[in-house]
């Protein structure tokens, strides 16, 4: 999958995301127990399990259709803050890629940017608020910088940037989401949502390399 990705490879990448979330869900929940309510891993895992079940049901979808299915399924199974946020992210990504049969690196970068736009439109967070946005903004910027490279390279750059961003959320005092209720006590812990964003991007990047 060095050129572009078709429906089946997008489906495989989403399955890889589901597997990564399943593997990390205990850690994501642990992070959320520190500064939230201890359900983020459980929420994401419930959502992506449902996504996989639906992918199984219909193998012949376009990339856009798959992203839309992911969006709707997350929206109706995750709940919490992350459900509508990731739901909107995938929905905007789906809209951006339209009904193309193949996604090239440019489309992937555009989809990522659209996803970020969706999260910000819905959640009103800005960088530094200790949220998903803190991982997505550098990811989108890195993808932008990697423009012209392969899908795998673009996603690789995004994933690496998101991963680095997770650590930058540690000292932040949360201003959005449940962690904001803790005030100063929210500092000193990585943000669960930023962490799950890094997990998702890493899994997508690995799948694109394969």
């Amino acid at each position: 999958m060095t050129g572009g990705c078709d429906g089946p490879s997008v489906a495989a990448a989403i399955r890889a995301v589901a597997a990564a979330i399943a593997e990390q869900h205990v850690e994501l929940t642990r992070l959320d127990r520190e500064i939230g309510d201890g359900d983020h891993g459980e929420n994401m895992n419930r959502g992506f399990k449902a996504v996989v079940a639906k992918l199984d049901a219909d193998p012949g979808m376009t990339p856009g259709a798959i992203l839309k299915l992911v969006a709707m399924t997350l929206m109706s199974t995750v709940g919490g803050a992350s459900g509508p946020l990731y739901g909107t992210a995938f929905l905007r990504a789906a809209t951006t890629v339209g009904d193309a049969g193949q996604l090239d690196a440019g489309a992937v970068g555009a989809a990522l940017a659209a996803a970020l736009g969706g999260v910000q439109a819905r959640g009103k967070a800005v960088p530094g608020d200790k949220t998903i946005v803190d991982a997505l903004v550098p990811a989108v910027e890195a993808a932008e910088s990697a423009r012209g490279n392969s899908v795998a390279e673009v996603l690789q750059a995004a994933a690496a940037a998101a991963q680095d961003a997770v650590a930058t959320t540690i000292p932040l005092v949360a201003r959005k989401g449940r962690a904001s209720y803790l005030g100063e006590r929210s500092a000193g812990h990585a943000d669960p949502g930023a962490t799950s964003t890094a997990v998702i991007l890493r899994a997508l990047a690995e799948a694109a390399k394969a």
Partner: protein
Amino acid sequence: MKKIINDPGNVVSEALIGFAAAHRDLVRVNFGPDYIVRADAPVSGKVAVVSGGGSGHEPLHGGFVGAGMLDAAVPGPVFTSPTPDAVLAATQAADGGSGVLHIVKNYTGDVLNFETAAELADAEGINVSAVVINDDVAVEDSTYTAGRRGVGGTVPLEKITGAAAARGDDLAAVTAIAQRVIGSVRSMGVALTPCIVPHSGEPSFVLSDDEIEMGIGIHGEPGRHRIPMEPADTLVADLLAPVVEDLPFERGDRALLMVNGMGGTPLLELYLAFGIAAGLLEKQGIEVSRSLVGNYITSLEMQGMSVTLLRLDDELTQLWDAPVHTAALRWGM
């Protein structure tokens, strides 16, 4: 973790089965998406009041479905807000043609999911209005943050708003009453012990045997600060002072005083705390004209309590006193 459950993943739906069986006369329960509606829903011509949120706060919200209070409640997984499709389905089931008011506790998840549901309902031609309750004085308020949490004030809000709908107010009027309650109610809570979310199996925080968490929310989140255990006189005073100062409540005010248990605190202690709070308010010239003591908005088995104070005028008092018939709150019928 010892809990009276089977599979942690099925706690909410199995509890709903029991709730439906215990209150057949009062409610209907829908499974997949999960919601609870009044047995006689939709009530034609009446504004419907719908609320919901994560489970684990029982009796909130399902225990408040019935005549004079909520038309429907949407329970999410434990401490996780329900999804838009569930809220939409409940909204549709409750709508009697005069519009629906969503009562949303101020948590990002609840706000976003109800917002989406309202957009969907709007697209279906249902007139939806929403209020967001944010009464927790433990959280600093700011336009740059998510703002304050919705906690104990949700209970009188749902009661009074439901009564306004029951007396025939239109959607704008019901919404205005709800806003008035939100503007007049303040709360604060304390945890003596954490709670354990079934699927996680881990305590939400760890306290030593002489520490308490002041300013907790209702999801087992850590509070604003940790202090050594205090005698009840001091503890109640420490909870009450920021509640009184915030609005502020003033000499001559009449108020509803609610002393709420977080789930694992004996009623004996709640009454003891109520007596202290009522005594302190009397000294400040604030008249406790209505009262409510018990477990109404809980955090699973957490030990602790919250104090809620709602300023009352004649109209709010009348609406509080109006007949209500739900699983958890009932009078006059």
